[in-house]
């Protein structure tokens, strides 16, 4: 018997965090002791790290917005500017698209091309609606003289929400690429890895949006 597995077998259970060894999971999972991980796991973990670093980037924009929300230079504040009905529709679009992206994952796992394409198309249309509403909102703000140059508050607003919008736009480009690649290349391993990263990205964008509608729109509107 090799030394590492004996050490792991001693029942001290350093990383299981109180769960104990599950019946169907060998004790060496998560310890790197079962040999190198398959590529699928390395890719997924690496992209998860990227997502987390992206969330940290967004946290800087969130902090900027929260700190500068009162720095209006005599200009309009959230209460005069934000239309919460618009925000509610945007939220619904993004939440539903996150759900349909989950449906795509189910179809991809079963190598079902038709449902993969249908659910990807629905996800993309919901994402497009979201971006359309956001661009419409931005243009409306600029038309009433509340562009990003008006005050520090508006600069931080456009930076935060705009950065999220750019992410969604990139996600839509990626989604289009996936819609083309599934029929063209089939459900081969590299494409499945690519799709795994895409679904992580899309779900993460919705999680960021939860922060935006809560902090920027809802909390922003009640603070006087």
């Amino acid at each position, binding site marked *: 018997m*090799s030394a590492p*597995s004996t050490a792991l077998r001693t029942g001290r259970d350093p990383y299981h965090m109180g769960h104990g060894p599950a019946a169907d999971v060998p004790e060496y999972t998560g310890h790197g002791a079962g040999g190198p991980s398959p590529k699928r796991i390395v890719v*997924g*973990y690496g992209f*998860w790290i990227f997502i987390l670093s992206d969330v940290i980037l967004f946290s800087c924009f969130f902090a900027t917005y929260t700190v500068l929300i009162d720095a209006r230079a005599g200009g309009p504040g959230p209460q005069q500017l934000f239309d919460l009905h618009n925000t509610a529709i945007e939220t619904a679009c993004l939440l539903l698209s996150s759900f349909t992206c989950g449906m795509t994952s*189910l179809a991809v*796992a079963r190598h079902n091309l038709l449902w993969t394409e249908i659910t990807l198309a629905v996800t993309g249309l919901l994402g497009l609606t979201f971006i359309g509403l956001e661009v419409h909102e931005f243009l409306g703000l600029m038309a009433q003289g509340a562009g990003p140059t008006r005050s520090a508050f508006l600069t931080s607003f456009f930076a935060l929400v705009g950065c999220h919008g750019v992410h969604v736009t990139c996600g839509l480009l990626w989604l289009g690429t996936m819609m083309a690649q599934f029929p063209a290349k089939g459900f081969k391993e590299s494409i499945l890895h690519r799709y795994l990263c895409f679904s992580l990205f899309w779900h993460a964008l919705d999680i960021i949006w*939860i922060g935006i509608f809560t902090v920027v729109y*809802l909390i922003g509107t009640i603070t006087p």
Partner: protein
Amino acid sequence: MSSDRERFEDFDLGSHVGEDQVVGEGPAGERPPTLRSELRGYLIGLALAVLLTAASFWALDEHLIYGPGIVMALIVFGLAQVGVHLVFFLHLTTSPDNTNNALALAFGVLIVSLIFLGSIWVMYHMNQNMVPTRALLQMRGG
């Protein structure tokens, strides 16, 4: 020895048992999960997320929640919804095969809270200790 050998042979059969779990994929089991059970998970997640979103928007109505508590209620609803998304859409669990993902997330949460809460804390105290702009202009003028 022999049990070890058998375990390693399990890996070669293409089964994912014993591997770390990938975020965004369901737990690796001996049998692939049925479409119905996976669909149920996503639907529960969607229902909870819709409920929490609706609660956030309704909380703005001052008659429902005690006025000064609204901000706290919104933060709680938001964090709860993030949790719902992590569990039902990204399939993050605390099981042993998810340790790496959960630990990376925990580190991310640490950094995010340092940046966000730290900025608010520092800037709030700086604003308190600054001379107000109007007073500053008067001092210069006088």
